[in-house]
């Protein structure tokens, strides 16, 4: 395994194994089997830079590195994409 990225939406994180030479479209096709949403209804944003990933470019070209966090948004009712939303647990430090 060359690398993995963390694809996040709301309260869910998908760990996706990938290769720096794969394109953003390749990632969407992997996600498609997990979330039952066609790749055309998915939009991926690199969280660190807020850049929307280009389907035809590779991960390396778009500075998506190992362990990177990528936000997933879905198209609502065949129209616009929803806003990026990644939920955070309320108290980040939950020492017991």
């Amino acid at each position, binding site marked *: *395994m060359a*690398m993995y990225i963390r694809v996040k939406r709301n*309260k*869910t*994180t998908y760990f996706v194994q990938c290769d720096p030479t794969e394109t953003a479209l390749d990632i969407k096709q992997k996600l498609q*089997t997990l979330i039952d949403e066609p790749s055309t209804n998915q939009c991926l944003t690199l969280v660190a830079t807020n850049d929307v990933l280009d389907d035809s470019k590779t991960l390396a070209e778009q500075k998506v590195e190992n362990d990177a966090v990528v936000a997933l948004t879905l198209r609502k009712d065949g129209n616009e994409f929803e806003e990026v939303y990644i939920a955070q*647990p309320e108290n*980040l*430090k939950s*020492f017991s």
Partner: protein
Amino acid sequence: MKKEDTVKLISAEGFEFVIDKKAAMVSHTIRNMLTSPGGFAETQLGEVTFPEISTPILEKVCQYFYWSLQYASGMETEFHIEPEITLELMMAANYLHT
């Protein structure tokens, strides 16, 4: 990447982490849950809930699983652990036999 080859780990706050079964198997506890014949309901559902593991810790554990696979395949990088989560992470690792 097939749905059947992944498992969903759910944290105390109900956050979900979908990871490859192969990565989850780094944990002996999860491996036992997923492979013991007929025993655990988790085996069929492919979902494991950890009411005692908080979200940031469970995410770190998942990152560790993948790091461990990478390390085993010859990629020698360092695994960074923030000092403030060390204790909680150790307790989770102990429970998960990781």
